[in-house]
């Protein structure tokens, strides 16, 4: 079996880490050509999904910090907005102070029902594909959702709908919603594979921070 160079480095890095990666990436000893095809298609599907997850419309409120971000340049949210103890802003300055159930063409302020930040456990900032993928499908890090629930969440959650209806001059996420649902199904049926970690088996600093935050949560 020829391992990609990156993975080969990983292999030598440490048995426990490598094992975890192998399990997670589905590259077991029984891997055959079909599995590999499924896997590569699944990875390709997740790559498309990740474009949505990483898009500012989603990522700006899936932060790993005590504050949300704004805009395509992802600057810290104006008005020193804080996440707050329940991810809905702080007393006196809640998300709902400005964001209502619909986009507001008068003020330009976007809105959807239940406007809030994702919990810290669901923070995605700074994650490479593989890390993002594992966080995304980990029920401890995705709000307790299995794969079908995740798909339903993306398909019909009214707050998630913001990605496709951002209002104003904001760019929607780059993949149509129906297509995203198809990608979720393709990824799921391929075994929901995740790419291997980047280098030396060490999670990125951001991933470590996200994991620590998740643990704290």
């Amino acid at each position, binding site marked *: 079996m020829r391992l990609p160079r990156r993975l080969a480095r990983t292999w030598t890095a440490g048995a426990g880490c490598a094992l975890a990666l192998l399990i997670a990436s589905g590259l077991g000893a029984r891997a055959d050509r079909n599995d590999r095809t499924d896997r590569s298609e699944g990875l390709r599907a997740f790559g498309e999904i990740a474009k949505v997850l990483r898009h500012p419309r989603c990522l700006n409120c899936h932060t790993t910090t*005590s504050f949300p971000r704004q805009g395509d340049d992802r600057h810290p949210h*104006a*008005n*020193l907005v*804080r*996440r*707050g*103890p*329940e*991810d809905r802003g*702080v007393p006196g300055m809640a998300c709902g102070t400005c964001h209502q159930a619909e986009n507001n063409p008068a003020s330009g302020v976007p809105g959807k029902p239940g406007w809030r930040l994702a919990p810290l456990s669901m923070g995605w900032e700074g994650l490479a594909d593989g890390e993002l993928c594992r966080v995304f499908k980990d029920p401890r890090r995705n709000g307790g959702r299995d794969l079908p629930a995740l798909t339903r969440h993306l398909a019909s959650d009214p707050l998630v709908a913001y990605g496709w209806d951002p209002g104003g001059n904001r760019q929607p996420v780059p993949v149509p919603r129906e297509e995203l649902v198809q990608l979720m199904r393709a990824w799921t049926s391929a075994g929901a594979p995740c790419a291997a970690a980047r280098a030396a088996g060490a999670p990125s600093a951001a991933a470590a921070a996200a994991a620590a935050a998740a643990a704290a949560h």
Partner: protein
Amino acid sequence: MPRAESTTSRRTESPAAAPPAAGGTSRRAFLWSTALAGGGLLLRCALPAKAATMTGAAAVAPPAGELPLTPWVRITAANVVTIVVSQAEIGQGISTTLPAILADELGADWEAVQLETAPFAPAYRNPQRNWMFTGNSESVQAFYDLMRQMGAAAREMLVEAAAARWGVAPASCHAAGSAIVHDASGRRLTFGEVAAEAAKLPVPASPRLKADAELKLIGKPLPRVDVPAKVDGSARFGIDLALPGMLAGAVRTAPDLLGKLRRVEPSSVSGMPGVRAVVPLERGVAVVADTWWQARTALAKLQVEFEAAPDARLSSAQIRDDHRRILEAGPWVTPVATGEVEQRMRAAAGAGRVVTADYENPFMAHATMEPMNCTVSVTPGGCEVWAPTQGQELAVLTLAGVLGLRNDQVQVNRSPYVGGAFGRRLLPDFIVQCALVSKAVGRPVKMIWDREEDIRRDWFRPATAVRLTCGLDAAGLPTALAARVVSPTILLPVFPALAPMLREKGFDPSALEGMLETIYELPHRRVDFHLWETPIPTSVMRTTGYGPNLFALESFVDELAHAAGTDPLAYRRRLLGKNPRARRVLDRAAQLAGWGTPLPPGRGRGLAVAEAFGTLVAQVIEVAVSAPEVRVLRVTSAVDCGRVLDPGIAASNIEGGVIFGLAYCKSEITFDHGAVVQSNFDGYELPYLAEAPELVTELMPSGEKLGGIGETSPVTVSPALANAIFAACGRRLRAMPLGRHGLRLGVARPPKGKGYA
């Protein structure tokens, strides 16, 4: 507490939804008028005409021999004492302080006094300028003596009338609590009971002023008269005005600063709810509707084309290049040349001891919280205005000219509350625009600029460039100082009569404030000025020339101190040998701030001292720098304004001014291809409460001449902050705002709690 007029029941202003009032009643009666119904007496006090000190005043001075008769006080038979407030209450507290001065001399019961906003009338002109306006931090300085005299004169007339009725000597009586008391017998007559007789008496030319010990209000921290109405929503600002039969207007001007209206299609909004008219203007278009929101909604749908006027020269980069080129090449006029600057510079250069540094100040927008707005009714015979304004007189003159009316056909009423001003409301541009719209539709119209118009169509504090060059002696102390200042005019738009001087002498004295004179002992000094021509509208803004020039000078002095290896406090003290007032505030600010005590790494203290608006201010700013964040931890201000008339109000002005000064360091207005880049608080960010430092403020009256307060404390913030940042991390900021250096304001108190940190 005295009742400001907007809290009295005499006001019968109707809400917007109310039907127009029945005819026959003066519209003004529905608004801010305060004419008393019957029994009112006017104590008309003569005010000797003063020589105009501003060139422009001659144009509006009363005819020879005519004395301004000044109705400052009215008293009814029922003993209601009404004092007129000539100055705009723009947040500085003047509507408390000036009438309190008068009431104190008068012996009126302050709690029962009624206050009234002055109409435009020559009597209410600033007596030092002979011009009716509110600004330049000089309301107290200009009106203090007059208020004392008017109060004392009225008191003497009332006392004389009472004494005559009793057949006793006036000297045996005194006034207190809005009554006259005969000291020996204890007999008492209210002001109202003798007002009719008092009004027939001649006005004493030089009434006795009370001794300090007799004063009960002056010098005390009085509760502001405007505060109660500002905590329950009842304070009516200009934007809150409702006039019977009034329509509302919204305006959009060309995106390019010099763009003009090319074409508008009124039919594109006809039939929209409430829409009454589309009024083309030179640079924009107004939609007039029943409500402002209807007008604004239609405006967004209106088919309108503007002439594009892209201008590559109108860009911030180009402006900076221009300034740098001018700093090298001039040409210059030289308003100050004292001592032997050239010889000393040559000598210092020979010894390799000449230092020079260039400083830049950014364009800034006033961004008053209440956007520009105005209500005007233009009729064939006249024009009546209700406006949140600082500049009633300029508004009258300008409107008369634009509308082809006589001055006396124009009435400009000032709203009793004004939502911030900072110099912006000295200008009549928004009033004229509203008048043109009212004239076009033949109805009273209230125009409200949205924030985008308010910022893009500001008359900005201009970007300026300052080059400072200094020859040093062996100890690193300056032997000569040369300054070059590049600035457009800031004073001309608010005082058009400056024009001849600007033409003949080529410099704007306001743009050179803080440079024409200096607190430091620098006898060999030269100041060059280049009047930078720009199509960008520029005008005065809180701190006027002092802010930009003293950012340069106080930064430069700090640089000289560090270059000499001397503590910046000690260095300044050596240059202030002949200025004990400056040394006193400097020493006190340093002491209060713990100057010289050790700080943890990343922290620093910066110092600045200035004389501005007749007041000495020294400031120490303590910062914590962790790039890109600059956290301003504490700002200590020591202020000597000569005499403190109200320590509470003075302190609030100093405190607020510090935050205003931080705004000069936080944001800027930029230009790109002929357009203003920022248009709201998203691009033009003001400081937040969380970024506000701890404030330590000490007033140090010296008994010297009264100085201004409102604009003083922001003057020293930019240099003190730059100096503090240098102390903290070694970076020298020669331009503001912080963003030019990849820095930004951080929160003063870093959060720790869950979801906050």
